[in-house]
């Protein structure tokens, strides 16, 4: 409704698999096979963004 903020969460369902690949607006990435678990991880930002998870270039 207002201008985009740039705080964008993204979840890609990887073709040919049942895997969801999520990228938080901070760049942390996470994989899951359950969309509810994925959103819980995403929205807990930054809580639970374990250090061993890759940190992408950000969105």
């Amino acid at each position, binding site marked *: *409704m*207002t*201008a*985009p*903020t*740039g*705080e*964008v*969460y*993204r*979840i*890609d*369902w*990887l*073709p040919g698999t*049942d895997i*969801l690949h999520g990228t938080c*607006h901070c760049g942390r990435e996470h994989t899951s*096979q*359950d*969309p*509810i678990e*994925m*959103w819980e991880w995403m*929205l807990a930002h930054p809580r639970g963004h374990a250090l061993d998870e890759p940190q992408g270039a950000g969105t």
Partner: protein
Amino acid sequence: MPHTTAFARNQWYVAAYSHEVGRDLLGRTILGEPLVFYRTEDDGTAVALHDRCVHRRFPLSESRLDGDRIVCGYHGFTYDTTGTCVYVPGQKRIPRTARVASYPVVEQDALVWVWIGDPALADPQVIPRAPHLASPDWVTVSGMEPIDADYGLLVDNLLDLSHETYLHGGYIGSPEVAETPITTEVDEGAGVVRVSRHMADAECPPFYAKSTGIQGRITRWQDIEYHAPCLYLLHSRIAPVGVLPEADGSDPNGFHTEITYAITPSSDGKVYDFWAVSRDWATDDAEVTEFLRGNNHTVVMQDVDALNLLQKTLGSERGGYQELSINIDTGGLAARRILARLVEEGAKPVEKVQ
């Protein structure tokens, strides 16, 4: 107990198509508030007032206009465009409390938007756009169906198009819709959910085969943009298989269809389903227009029947029933969460800056 999603106040909602608001009084209930709409005689401005006379609660929408004033059909209490009572029968003194609420209205893109909430917070700049609805470059067929279902069920339905394969098979559905993975994006601050499904090589469903004349398989893209809580846009592109937009971004060989929905909660367990299909191809072909009108109406009624049934079924369930969500629900879950946030924000008392 009916299945209900709480309403998000302090938001703009589509109340009607522009062509529905005129010199006849139109009654619509939005977020549980009965409203009456009409257009002024002089400049054609759309007006929205509370649809109950202060005297004995008679619906003003079942009354009549005298110029730009509504005269209550029961005892003649008369209201101007601001909702102020300017006449009561039999006496000169008009009680100070004799007024009905007026609601902020904006007319844009052939839609009449109304603000439900604190009028001081109504900012027309935040209303999402659907410019194709009023553009001379697009031809639109549209309608509105009231559904006896919670608006959350319609949001669920529209955010997960895999149902096209099963509920709309033989119309807009094909096997590839349910089979193709989606990408989901949430722009938190903007309150927008985007769900994309790009099918590289898909069966052409009858809806598009008959209307576009494409023979054989297609490349089919569905890009959803849901501007919570009310406006849903589905940017659809189809083309013969393998035909993509040009490097410069132009797309002379693609067929573009903008599917617009306005999801306007009426009362608990009821929603107005505004639907429109706009196209930038075969724009002067009346036969295509009529085909799309009839066919899309059929598709919408398949959803209406399914959601009426679902609402009835959920209403007969014991409380605390379980759902199961899978990958296809990623977008719908995002929409539910954004709605929950808007509901919470709309319920908070707002401190007004004087």
